[in-house]
């Protein structure tokens, strides 16, 4: 369960990025986070990852009060989350395997397990035959799949994605978002930030819409 309770985020000397936000995403649910550029979508995800601190309010994630989480507990908390970025954030000098393996290495998983789990994750995203490729030799869609494999290889409780289809064309966007839906169907809580209205309508998932840091009425599942 992700729960924002009266969460405000502002930077010193600047306007409020998020204002009195109340949002609840139950465990195992998938929702989309929409809104124009600058609405606060990325900031909301950064708060969830504890890349930014909450200014006021309480943010609870699966029983953890993220707003008061001590610094030394942040790494362990982040290992419970998978995250996908618009720009993939891949290590360009490492092959696909090494990029995905990083998530398991930081968790102290042994070499043998890393081998099998990385292969399984890459099979899931359809890149089983690209394991030793460098990211630069892959298409944008394939690079994003590597990013997704890295985010799900440790079977996180929550999967976050910040504009994962922002750099992809229509059909690739559909493929990527369908992948997220697959993971959701396996019980993962998924929150995807997107401004792609056609995909929002196609997926028919609950939507949290942000405008200038304020949550507008959320839409329930339409299909």
């Amino acid at each position, binding site marked *: 369960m992700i729960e924002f309770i009266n969460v405000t985020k502002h930077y010193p000397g600047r306007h409020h990025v998020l204002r009195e936000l109340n949002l609840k995403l139950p465990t195992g649910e998938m929702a989309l986070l929409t809104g124009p550029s600058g609405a606060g979508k990325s900031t909301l995800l950064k708060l969830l*990852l504890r*890349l930014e601190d909450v200014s006021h309010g309480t943010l609870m994630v699966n029983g953890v009060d993220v707003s008061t989480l001590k*610094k030394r507990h*942040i*790494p*362990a*908390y*982040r*290992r419970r*989350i998978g*995250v996908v970025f618009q720009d993939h*954030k891949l*290590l360009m000098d490492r092959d696909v395997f090494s990029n995905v393996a*990083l*998530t398991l*290495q*930081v*968790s*102290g998983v*042994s*070499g043998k397990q890393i081998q099998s789990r990385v292969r399984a994750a890459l099979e899931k995203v359809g890149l089983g035959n690209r394991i030793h490729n460098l990211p630069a030799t892959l298409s944008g869609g394939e690079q994003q799949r590597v990013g997704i494999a*890295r985010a799900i290889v440790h079977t996180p409780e929550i999967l976050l994605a910040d504009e994962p289809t922002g750099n992809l064309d229509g059909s690739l966007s559909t493929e990527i978002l369908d992948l997220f839906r697959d993971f959701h169907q396996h019980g993962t809580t998924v929150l995807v930030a997107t401004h792609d209205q056609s995909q929002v309508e196609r997926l028919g998932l609950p939507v949290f819409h942000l405008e200038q840091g304020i949550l507008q009425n959320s839409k329930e599942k339409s299909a």
Partner: protein
Amino acid sequence: MSALHVRREAAQNALNTLLKQPLATLMTIFALAIVLALPVGLFAALNNLQQLLGQWRDQAQISLFLHQDATEQDIQQLQKQLQGSTGVVNVRYVSKEAALKTFEKNAGMTAAIKILGENPLPASFVVELNPLSESPAVLQAQVQEWARQPGVASAQSDLHWVARLQAILALGKRAVWILAIILAVGAILVMGNTIRLHIAQRRDEIDIASLVGATRAFIRRPFLYQGLIQGAIAGILAWVIIAITIAILQGPVDRLATLYGTRFQLLGLTGLEGLILIVISAILGWLGSRLAVGQHLDHTFS
């Protein structure tokens, strides 16, 4: 997280990073080795100087003149005491007759002594001291103690030069320590700067690792191992530099010693001293890395 395989992977990671850039790695190691070799070389030079000065024991002679009526027992007891005293390298008994012969030979005053009718010169002990065995105060106290022994009339010594010599050596040691500390800071900065460059090259990797839940220790470990490995190799290299320098200097030293009718073997580092040098060097490398990576992580994790 602290499992052995995690540390092994970090060490492998560190080694790979160093081997990927052999020239940069070698330059860092050489820079560190030279920085370390300088104070350690000076320490070795001081040790050699001490060894050399220790050989100048004929310059630290004490003469104990005996009473005319000193008994054979007094003389034997005194000789035993002198031989068992700290810092005494050699004890030589000079009888009245031997003293007279030397006097006649050196001063050419045979006629004058013949007029006196008897030998006025006392028997004596000539004690050779290692001037660096004790402080001048201790040596002086020891000489005074000998002077109070039965059968001893007076003691003649010149320990002022020993005090001066020891003061110069103490000054040299202090100067080398200061230099060593300054250069140790230099070694830390060299390593810190090198690691800072490595961090800059791997900034993306650090940021991504942090995003997927890497702890500070996980991110820090490969950099610390890099510092440790480079520091240890620099320590070995510094040891080799000193050994080569000593080997090169031994020839001229031999020739110089021959001119003075003596022999002098230059001392390098002992096995234990060499190991200490490697350990200290590795620690300095580790410390430099820790400072650099800690500074970066404070920023990343803030």
